[in-house]
């Protein structure tokens, strides 16, 4: 995750101190770590990318491993946000804009603002005039902003794969008004393949390489006459995505009912347990939807493998995912792309359960 180039002892020490401050929810100590490092001449970009970014990545990992609570994760992000704000006000950091203008925004409904925030700060440091629109920017706001203020490029951030359809809408809208889009964030895949699939003009894995790419110049897209969003993704013609997304509540309800009739334990759930289960099922349906949108199995199977890992960390048997797939397969049997996707996901899950099962046996 933290592929920072500058892993010197000084930086590692700073990371540890910031980690301690952030997990103690001590905003002042966190700010003090970073501001003192600046005074020692670490360089603002290094503070952002080699100290704050890796600590933030670690927060995400620790949360997934159930070693941080939701509250701690939120608090850590809020503190990181304020530390970045404090850093931007540090006298050694101010830079007058001398390059072009860049708009940095998160996709609609995307709440993970920090990656975009880091890019905005790095670009500002390198001399760009940056309009930072923040988290979850509705596409009409983004386009209104571009009409009013113009931009050489839009940097669009998304971390959750289920927002890819929204990202697609934003990318095509920006290009339609003649502004190229650089996509970034975990949602677009570790190699950026989803960004290219959605027709983004560029993709970069981190803030530094994104800043370099923007400096190299990204050509203005020429709006082709009569281009439609579905031209990039012709498989959407089968409408399976639309049908699955629209019937999400019914699918969740049906899966829930079937689970309760098959497993006595599920029938005895409290309301709250039932709601958690419903939410988990809804997430699975969401990822099925986005895999259909992108026509990419990995988006669905990858999510199931990840969920199995999360369940494992929370001591829930991952085998409980199996009946969900069975019911979804039955419910969606009339949709060829969906049902074959569910079948393939079942095989991936079987393989995963076989390996973890053998491991626990050998351990036991």
């Amino acid at each position, binding site marked *: 995750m933290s592929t920072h180039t500058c892993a010197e002892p000084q930086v590692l020490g700073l990371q540890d101190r910031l980690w301690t401050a952030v997990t103690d929810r001590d905003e002042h100590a966190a700010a003090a770590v970073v501001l003192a490092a600046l005074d020692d001449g670490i360089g603002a970009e290094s503070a952002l990318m080699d100290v704050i970014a890796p600590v933030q990545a670690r927060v995400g990992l620790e949360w997934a491993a159930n070693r941080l609570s939701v509250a701690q994760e939120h608090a850590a992000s809020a503190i990181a946000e304020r530390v970045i704000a404090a850093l931007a*006000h540090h006298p050694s950091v101010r830079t007058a804009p001398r390059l072009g203008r860049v708009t940095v925004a998160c996709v609609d409904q995307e709440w993970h603002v920090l990656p975009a925030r880091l890019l905005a700060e790095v670009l500002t440091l390198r001399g760009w005039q940056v309009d930072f629109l923040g988290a979850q920017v509705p596409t009409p706001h983004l386009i209104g902003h571009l009409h*009013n203020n113009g931009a050489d490029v839009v940097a669009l951030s998304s971390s959750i794969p289920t927002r890819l359809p929204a990202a697609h809408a934003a990318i095509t809208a920006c290009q339609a008004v003649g502004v190229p889009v650089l996509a970034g964030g975990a949602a677009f895949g570790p190699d950026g393949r989803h960004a290219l699939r959605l027709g983004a003009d560029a993709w970069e894995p981190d803030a530094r390489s994104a800043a370099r790419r923007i400096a190299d110049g990204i050509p203005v897209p020429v709006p082709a006459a009569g281009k439609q969003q579905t031209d990039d993704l012709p498989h959407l013609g089968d409408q399976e995505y639309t049908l699955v997304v629209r019937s999400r509540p019914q699918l969740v309800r049906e899966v829930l009912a079937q689970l309760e009739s098959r497993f006595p334990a599920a029938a005895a759930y409290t309301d709250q347990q039932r709601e958690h289960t419903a939410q988990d099922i809804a997430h699975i349906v969401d990822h099925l939807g986005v895999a259909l949108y992108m026509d990419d199995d990995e988006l669905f199977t990858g999510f199931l493998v990840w969920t199995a890992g999360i369940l494992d960390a929370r001591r829930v048997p991952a085998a409980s995912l199996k009946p969900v797939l069975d019911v979804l397969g039955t419910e969606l049997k009339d949709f060829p792309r969906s049902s074959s996707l569910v079948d393939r996901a079942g095989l991936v899950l079987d393989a995963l359960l076989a390996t973890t099962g053998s491991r626990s046996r050998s351990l036991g």
Partner: protein
Amino acid sequence: MARLKEHIASRTQKHTTTDLWGSAPYAVIVVDGAGTLVDLNPAAASLLEGAVRGSALSEAVPPWLANAHRETTESTGRSAGDDGAASPRPAFRGRIGARSFAAHPAPDRGGDVTWWLIDDTEQRLVEEELATERERTAFLAEASNVLLASLNTDRCMQVTAQLASRHLAEAAVVIVPAAGRQLPMACAVGGGTAVRTTVTADAARVPGLSEALQGFPPVPSRWIDPASLPDWLIPEGFAGPVGSAAVTPLPGHGVPAGVLVLLRSTGSTEFNENEEVFARLFAARAGAALSAARLYAEQSDITRTLMRDLLPPRLDRVNGVDFAGGYQPAAARDRVGGDFYDVHPGSTPGDASLAVLGDVCGKGLDAAVLTGKIRNTLQALTPMAGDHERMLRLLNGALLNSHHTRFATLVLASVRREESRVRLRLTSAGHPAPLVIRNDGRVEEIDTRGTLVGALPHVEARTVETDLRPGETCLLYTDGVTEARGGPLGDELFGERRLMRALAECGGMPGAAVVERVQMLASQWLHDGRHDDMALVAITAPLTTHLSAVDGHTRGRYTR
């Protein structure tokens, strides 16, 4: 000589087929492998004046046809043994005199080639016209496409300059009207990317420029003396001296759209008829796009100015208390709605600040206008914040006397820091009760009740006091949060119980994180569904009493 004549005579006799094409409506010539004209029909004789049997092809016909013959005989030689008649060979095209011809070769096995020369002048003219027309249509389609794409003035200027410098002249400069002597302009050379600059210059010094910039009275496009061009009008990268320059006004619809200056290195000061039509069509499109962009920019300026006071304020630390706000209007295209919040700081750190959060019935701009009125009234009433009920009575009176028929619910919070604690006086007027997140994980509903304002002649309200210990947060929210409909099953309300359960996980979080957490949960609950406006204000007693190292720029630093 005698041998040659004999040779030709014998060849002529051999070719009794001459009778077959002698009267053909096309010119036909027969040429041998050595490039000698062996035979020709009367049509060919009149076309190729002076060509007779026996003359060398290279002297009888234009070079393109002689070359075509050499090429044909060479390729026939190579493919000897094949049945030459199997597939018709492609025709060669070229001019003979003033007309255009297609020359179709028909080689025979003896090595002679019979050429059929077919006049295709008319066809070629039509083809050329079609190509020109296609090119023009493609350009205008591209121009419309690119120009209509953006409502940004700068971009429209750049695109106009770039397209004009590719199709109408070697370089183009677009200048748009502006106040004062600052002239915003975009220059492009040879279809390259346009550069947007601003020059300080007097437009009146360029003939025709200031009239064209005013857009009235209408002026025609005119060629001006290149010597009168100031340096700032000649783009960087324009090679050589300017041979000719034209000033073309861009027709805006009711508003002046700007001027296109075209620069050529040659001295030709005329458009031909084609270019003239072309230039006009282009200018019309560019003018329409630029004036639309200007109108949009003016309208959004007006909107921005009018909306400035309706937007939710940014909240921060005030007099040693952390405030955080969050706002999501019902419609994604709106920025304002019927919910509102404000924090009015106490005049000294010892005085209470007043936080207000409320909800006007209705959504969108109409509701937002009324929130503006309520917010102004409440600001004027802040000196009376010691008595919330009295404030509400006065507000109620003001609303009843206005022409608005809407009513509002709100909650008032007087907030004062005392040592490390924060003292709260809370009053709800028909509004969901404030919730307090205690450090031990309990979520407490503050039991304040009151009537909504703007509907009834009399209002009543009960004020409740409570304290926040360091790290504790009081959350004010509007019912857009709890009435968010959705969830995994699609039709459930988010509800107060779920909100309280979510807040129970937020113990000790910074206020901003609490607000963000609730916003995130509610919007995930909605899952793209429609919702009412949602507003949240978190009032948090800071954990530490240090100087605020983080936002030293905020007013009201607190030291102990």
